């Protein structure tokens, strides 16, 4: 029961993370539901004493990536550099700085997936770089560089640039 109870306590935060990834509220809850089902099935793989939240975030994020791949949308296969080019091409060049002032959803939607998930984990969920790297299973340097690019784009679009 402890496992389920801890998961219940995590749900509000997990829904917030999923909303950042999936944007649409019902898509996000579908993602949470899939993650909970997966977690219950793979409960044996969670090692007691390790952080359940990180484990749960990783499951959620991996499911989301799987779904993005399955639906064949852009962004998942693109490398960071390609994504940045894509943004520069159809985004920043035409969107003047500050046009999306206040439209956080719109600005987040313009980030490549790799940057959006790091922004969510560090800037919204408050994870340390090391913890975010563990959740995403990437080197810490990857986290900091994606975060830096994501930040710059957001500041630009939201009009935070000085």
């Amino acid at each position, binding site marked *: 029961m402890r496992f*389920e109870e801890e998961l*219940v306590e995590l749900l509000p935060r997990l829904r917030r993370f999923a909303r950042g990834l999936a944007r649409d509220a019902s898509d996000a809850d579908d993602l949470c539901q899939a993650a909970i089902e997966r977690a*219950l099935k793979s409960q044996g793989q969670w090692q007691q004493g390790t952080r359940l939240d990180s484990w749960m975030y990783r499951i959620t994020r991996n499911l989301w990536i799987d779904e993005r791949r399955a639906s064949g949308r852009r962004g998942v296969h693109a490398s960071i550099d390609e994504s940045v080019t894509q943004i520069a091409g159809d985004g920043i060049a035409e969107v003047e700085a500050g046009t999306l002032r206040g439209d956080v959803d719109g600005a987040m939607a313009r980030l490549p997936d790799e940057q959006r998930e790091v922004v969510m984990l560090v*800037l919204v969920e408050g994870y*340390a770089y090391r913890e975010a790297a563990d959740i995403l299973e990437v080197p810490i340097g990857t986290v900091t560089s994606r975060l*830096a690019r994501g930040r710059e784009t957001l500041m630009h679009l939201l009009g935070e640039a000085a």
Partner: protein
Amino acid sequence: MSFDPATVAAFVDGELDDLTARRIEREAEGDPALAAEIARHRALKAKLAAHYAPVAEEPVPERLRALLTPDVAVDTSLATRREAKRARFAPIHWGAIAASLVLGLALGLRPWAPAASIAEANGAVVAAGPLADALDTQLASNQPPDAAVRIGLSFEDKAGRYCRSFESASLDGIGCRDNGRWRLERTMRGQAGTDYRQASSGELAAATAAMMGGDPLDAAAERQARDKGWARR
């Protein structure tokens, strides 16, 4: 500015060792460009946090919570009904009430509808499904006239929990917010048995009055409590 952008970001993210963090703070006092850069990063972080915070404050949808809380399977077999019928005359205990509620819902106005308005959690009878949704979200001050569940009063009980009285076709009662669920503290037969309606309403009002810790919530207080997920003040 003697700090690169990555270091400034790391400072704002709380990733720097104390020594470096203090150096940045000191330097920012005399370096407006550095101070502005820090403020810019903080502003973005605050904006994102404020944008997503309400999601974590929303009540968790029942369909997600239900995956993690073992509910009583609703068994409408004949044996269960017999058991339930007998239980109604036995001394009251929660198990019996749960069983009779299952009976009530099974024999309610819409027997084909999923009878899942109640469940058991940690030995207590709690609201589930549409009843839980109504208790979570519906405001007494603003509810559709044809709502399946009508909220009566919202109030705080003597222990400071938020409680809400409700009426529906098959079940009337009072649910109190307890550990993130609506624990059904009082239940009585709903309006389906129209003969009993008058008695039932009076009984519900009396039970509500007995449980109230103060005045019932007014419309504004009720909305505020709902928006905060019915967490105790």
